[in-house]
């Protein structure tokens, strides 16, 4: 199995303002993200040879690439991808394979979601397993199961547990407040988190991410061609993806703490990228904080924190903008918002911009970002995708050739 490392480069990206975009439809969001990416890459729409289009809910499943073709007037191969919350990463991953195979020279990865046309605030119930089994399963209801068991496993009282994950919300709101395209740009206090209405015990309002409209896009080219497009391309260093073989709810003997999909997907990407110690080597991570407890589980399953000890790192501020490994520097799903099909590409956009030193406001630009990770985790949950991006081509490898 070959590594994807240094075969593909991102030369342009776009991302819409996330939020309640009542005036914009799916097509408007697609246009906004794609045209920013075209401009960033310095290409014309005619240069695109193929498109991978990720969207989950809107306006319906089973209607393929129609919305990408209609909105952007594309006369090229378009493939719609859909894979729970990792959909944006699936668009990116498959577009990378299109380039790495040598089939195409310039491709578009596009993720779009229009969630605010459904008339209700959440994603709905009864998705997934069958008409009866999941009849009343919601996303917060499912992810709260992780929190309850985590607190139990590591002997945290509900109050201690809620405070621990609450600090993640405070951090992400602080980051989001500086992020111009984020859905929510308000700072919050731990007291607010603790006193917020309960959505699904133990998770309260501020433990849950925004339900937003948005789109993000990337232009990919072969790494060898990247400098022709721009001086500061960003290179794909690793791509991981893994499912768990059964929904967590039904997995025999599953401890609800060690998530195989998280561990497998990150390990695949680390191996390709040559990362031994992610906590030390990564300069930024954009991870799937659909709920605060999810971000905590990711710390421990990605090797950022030791098992059962994320609390120490959270309390020490290790994942804050000024910490050892800033996580969700743009506010994360929590504040930037979570238009499902766009999220993987939105996170990749943040890593791309941070690597280039082009985070929109100077106060949120991290110093000397060489290596970053973006990640989504989807299903009830069941599937995880990781992309690792880097600033430089690996020279030792180039020399070896």
């Amino acid at each position, binding site marked *: 199995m070959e590594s994807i490392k240094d075969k593909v480069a991102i030369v342009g990206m776009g991302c819409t303002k996330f939020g309640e975009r009542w005036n914009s439809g799916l097509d408007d969001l697609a246009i906004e993200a794609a045209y920013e990416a075209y401009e960033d890459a310095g290409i014309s729409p005619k240069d695109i040879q193929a498109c991978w289009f990720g969207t989950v809910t809107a306006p319906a499943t089973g209607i393929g690439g129609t919305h990408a073709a209609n909105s952007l007037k594309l006369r090229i191969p378009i493939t719609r991808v859909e894979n729970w919350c990792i959909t944006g990463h699936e668009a990116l991953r498959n577009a990378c394979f299109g380039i790495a195979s040598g089939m195409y020279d310039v491709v578009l990865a596009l993720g779009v979601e229009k969630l605010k046309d459904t008339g209700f605030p959440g994603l709905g119930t009864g998705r997934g397993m069958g*008409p*009866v089994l999941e*009849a*009343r399963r*919601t996303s917060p*209801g499912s992810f709260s199961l992780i929190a309850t068991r985590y607190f*139990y496993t590591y002997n945290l009282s509900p109050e201690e547990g809620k405070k621990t994950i609450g600090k993640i919300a405070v951090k992400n709101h602080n980051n989001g407040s500086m992020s111009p395209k984020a859905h929510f740009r308000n700072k919050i206090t731990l007291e607010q988190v603790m006193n917020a209405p309960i959505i699904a015990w133990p*998770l309260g309002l501020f433990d849950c991410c925004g339900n937003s409209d948005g789109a993000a896009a990337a232009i990919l080219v072969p790494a060898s061609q990247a400098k022709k497009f721009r001086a500061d391309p960003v290179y794909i260093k690793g791509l991981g993806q893994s499912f768990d073989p059964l929904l967590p709810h039904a997995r*025999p003997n599953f401890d*609800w703490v060690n998530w195989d999909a998280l561990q497998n997907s990150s390990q695949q990407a680390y191996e390709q990228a040559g990362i031994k110690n992610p906590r030390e080597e990564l300069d930024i991570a954009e991870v799937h904080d659909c709920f605060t407890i999810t971000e905590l589980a990711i710390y421990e399953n990605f090797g950022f924190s030791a098992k059962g000890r994320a609390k120490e790192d959270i309390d020490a501020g290790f994942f804050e903008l000024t910490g050892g490994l800033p996580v969700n520097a743009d506010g994360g799903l929590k504040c930037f918002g979570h238009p499902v099909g766009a999220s993987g590409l939105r996170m990749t956009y943040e890593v791309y911009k941070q690597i280039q030193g082009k985070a929109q406001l100077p106060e949120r630009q991290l110093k000397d970002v060489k290596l970053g990770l973006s990640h989504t985790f989807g299903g009830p949950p069941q599937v995880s995708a990781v992309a690792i991006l880097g600033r430089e081509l690996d020279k030792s490898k180039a020399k070896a050739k």
Partner: protein
Amino acid sequence: MSGIISYGAYVPIWRLNRDFIGAAWGRASFGGERSVANNDEDTVTMAVEAVLDCLAGFDRDSVDGLYFASTTPPFKEKQCASMVAAAADLRPDIITADFGNSLRAGTSAFRAALDAINGGSAENIIVVASDCRLGYPRSDYEQHFGDAAVALLISKKGKPIANVKASNTISNEMYDVWRLDKDTFVQSWEDRFIMEHGYTENMTKTITGLLKKLNLTPAAIARAALYGPNARTQQQLARQVGFDPKTQLQDLLAANLGVCGCAHALILLVSALEEAKGGDNLLMASYGDGSDAFLIEVTAEVDKVKAGRRGIKGFLASKLPLPTYERYLSYRGILEPQPGEAFRLFPSASVSWRERNWSLRFHGSKCRSCGLVTFPIQRICYQCQSKDDFEEVRLSDKKAKIFTFSLDNLAGRSDDPVIPQIVIESDLEKARIYSIMTDCDPKLIKIDMPVEMTFRRIYEGGGMYNYFWKCRPVR
């Protein structure tokens, strides 16, 4: 001759204090409390409970018939008995039939089962009667009625706990209490007329006729299990036919249950069996468009069955108070609740049919190679990957404990806004099951809490009622 070899019952956990009804309407409370089925219960789900209680300790494969009786079935066209039989995990090659339309439907089913067994069509038939009748808001009936189900296993073989010695019946055509095909609430004619020429006249005829047939005096009856529309009328009748209401009359359960439609005569029979000793003569009589009376002789075997089931006594003791009258109105569909978060996946008749072994029968798969038990049924083993090498195992009758949970405020309807989402670990090979908890106080839920499974109506959609299993704290 056929006899009763087991009994079972079910009373919903929720009880409504009648003072709440009186206060809501500014009228007198009849005192005590009545049972109220939860918003995920109907006569089918209650029947499943009673059947499972009745079959505790019996081989379910030995049952070759199930008769379901109700005046409030969830379907006008579609059998309930077949669904109850499937949820109870009975054999498919059995006789099933529904009895309805009359308060006598319960004893009609009972008689039909006796006849089928005596006639040689079957060896073991379970009769289940289940009712959730609605009185008009503010009416006497609203206070009098209760919701419950009862089951009797009747057999030619086995050791009977009671033998049916004789019966007597009368058919009587009159509008006394009725519902048209479009009616939600029970209608009735003037009380004095229906008591005089309906209930009292017909009950008296069947009871005295039966005693005469057997050459018995009322004193020979240890307990009379007499249906009654309310306690006062029942006691008057008992006196009129020669029973001492204090010592011979089976208490109507008006104070702590309510009168449960076509199930009620059989409920009183079960109540009598719970207190009976070998040699007792019981007289059961039902009323509705006529009357059925049965003379039943208890055997010493009755003591062996008492221990293994909850019955009326056990279920009456296990209860939670409904906090308001409005909650009753909403649970019973009289007020329309605001639905919870929208569904994304609608029921499908073909999916339900294809998946019936896990969705109705609640079977998991047990891998023949490595022994792992998984729910729902998995064709390829999660652990060892062996393909199509499993046996189906029943999980509905196994206890379990909570592995993790959350209390969801999004999914619930307005009368039950918190949905406890639960992952449980079954006592059977630690199989993991995703479940919703019902009949509980969400504040008391914690990891490792013991639970049991209960068959419930999950939701309505696509023109169908969708049924599945939930868990509840052990009752």
